[in-house]
């Protein structure tokens, strides 16, 4: 076993590197690789990804393993699982870290099972224990508890980390590039993507945003969600929603915040016509400042927010949005 600490790059559909990768590199460099005395390494898996090595170097990677293969185009769990498992078997890192995105959630546990590793998901802190093993904290019980989990001396130790939990700090290195030398047999990729539907959006991604504006069932229609988008765009915020709003067809599934949906922890979370269910709070309860606009004075959200207005969103939101607009315009 080596004592290398790996951070596997998490890529967006357009092939760019997600911010959580840089956050993980920064945090792992300080808290994990430093203490273990191991090298901080990046891992790039995908099709046409070699060019990103320098970006990983910018955030501290001293070495970057690359598996660049046409078979890894699009969303391909099996290909990624093979690539990462083979890399791990070959180079035996001590720690392997990835982003807790839909993608990371999908293949990290599978890789862990294949290589016999312990794995935790969605860590909000990473560190080294007294036994020199990985130690993480995460949310459990609908985000009402934070367990500390310590790994046994069994290698590698794997975890995904929650986006927006750590600061990405530049620490430029000129990384050595190592070709992974992993063969992928096309016959081992059994799941085929028939159709990939993505939509372009100028808004920030929910999990990366500093501000989030979310709407609930009370919005009443897809049309009315424009109120959410307007305010979001003025504030440079991401737009989110509750399950009730998604279920009703007011907005797409990937806007759902909560236990099933995305976990966010922005500086500012504005919840509009959202009752404040346990499951919704599981995804946004750690936001720094929570604001609620709701017409029901007894809505549970008023028991767990910082600021609120008891009022009808259709009365309150237009003047609020206008005032924010002029404030921002004034600078």
């Amino acid at each position, binding site marked *: 076993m080596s004592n290398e600490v790996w951070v596997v790059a998490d890529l967006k*559909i357009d092939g760019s590197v997600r911010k959580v990768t840089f956050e993980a590199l920064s945090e792992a460099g300080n808290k994990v690789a430093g203490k273990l005395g191991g090298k901080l390494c990046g891992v790039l898996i995908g099709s046409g990804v070699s060019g990103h090595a320098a970006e990983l170097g910018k955030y501290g990677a001293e070495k970057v393993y690359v598996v660049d293969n046409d078979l890894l185009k699009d*969303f391909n*769990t099996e290909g990624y699982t093979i690539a990462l498992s083979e890399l791990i078997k070959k180079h035996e890192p001590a720690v392997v870290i990835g982003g807790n995105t*839909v*993608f990371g*959630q*999908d293949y990290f*546990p*599978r890789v*862990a*099972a294949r290589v016999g590793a*312990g*794995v935790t*998901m969605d860590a909000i802190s990473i560190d080294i224990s007294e036994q020199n093993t990985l130690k993480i904290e995460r*949310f*459990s*019980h*609908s*985000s*009402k*508890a*934070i367990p500390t989990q*310590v*790994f*046994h001396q069994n290698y590698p130790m794997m975890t995904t980390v929650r986006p927006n939990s750590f600061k990405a700090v530049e620490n430029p290195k000129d990384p050595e590039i190592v070709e992974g030398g992993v063969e992928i047999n096309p016959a081992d990729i*059994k*799941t085929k*993507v028939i159709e*990939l*539907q*993505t*939509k372009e959006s100028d808004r920030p*991604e929910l*999990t990366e945003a500093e501000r989030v504006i979310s709407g609930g069932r009370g919005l009443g229609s897809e049309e009315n969600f424009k109120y959410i988008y307007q305010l979001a765009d003025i*504030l440079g915020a991401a737009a989110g929603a509750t399950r009730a709003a*998604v279920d009703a067809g007011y907005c797409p*599934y*990937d806007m759902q915040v909560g*236990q*099933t949906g995305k976990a966010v922890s922005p500086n*500012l979370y504005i919840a509009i016509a959202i009752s404040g269910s*346990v499951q919704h709070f599981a995804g946004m309860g*750690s936001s720094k*400042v*929570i604001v609620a606009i709701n017409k029901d*004075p007894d809505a549970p959200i*008023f*028991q*767990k*927010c*910082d*600021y*609120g*207005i*008891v*009022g009808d969103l259709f*009365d*309150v939101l237009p003047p*609020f949005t206008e005032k*924010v607009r002029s404030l921002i315009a004034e600078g």
Partner: protein
Amino acid sequence: MKILVLVSQTQDTEAKIQVSSSGDSIDTGGMKWIMNPYDEFAVEEAIQTKEKHGGEVVIISVGPDRVLETIRQALAMGADSAVQIKGDSFAETDSFTVGKVIGGEIKKLGDFDIVFTGMKIIDEESGQVGVQVAEELGIPHVSLVSKVIQVDPAGKKAVCQKEIDGGHVTVEVPLPCLITCPDAMNEPRYASLPGIMKAKKKPLTVVNAEDLNLEELGLSAQALGKEGARVKTTQIKVPEIERKLTIIKGSDEPMVKGEEVERSAEELIKLLREEAKVI
């Protein structure tokens, strides 16, 4: 078709959460145990698949005898039989081990077509076991399936819609496969009274943890306890975030109305700007 569903029992997290005196677990004393809500969607999807294509639904659940209540609920919803892998220590072991144990039992059940399970359990929230069972069985998995579009038992394939960041994909996966279910993919049915009566007579196989052949599963003798776990919980804290609870209300009735609307908007902006400093 033979359809399997991995079902867990969970603590109801709607309740208040308290850490036990040992500091490293949740006090389950007064807590209600329920079927993991995500597994309800898995059971429903399995039953609907059976209704369309014929066959049987087998429930597999790991845990002490309290899980029998959850197993009976699944049988009452319409599943045909169940396997309980019985033991007290599973809660302390790791997902790798649980995945191997469940996979090992599934292999004994003979050929099957699909395994459904919830995307995660709402208490531990680890979301690993399903995928790890698929690995143990050597079958493909599709996680976070928002819609099963088609199951084709003759053509040995399924087509599913899966949510990803920034959109969704439609994938075709050969059978047998494992599918993990988020919420809202269907509407889980309630158990009917006749269903509850029938459930009592449906076959249940109990496998005792002590009788498992750990060596054959590639597991160490300590694998089932806390000592053998690859990852251990050493401490649990309850997050305490103090909220300001500054709520702007109307003067006559709770809701702001008329002129108060403008004023409340201004007041909120002032608070966000000067007190919270977030805009």
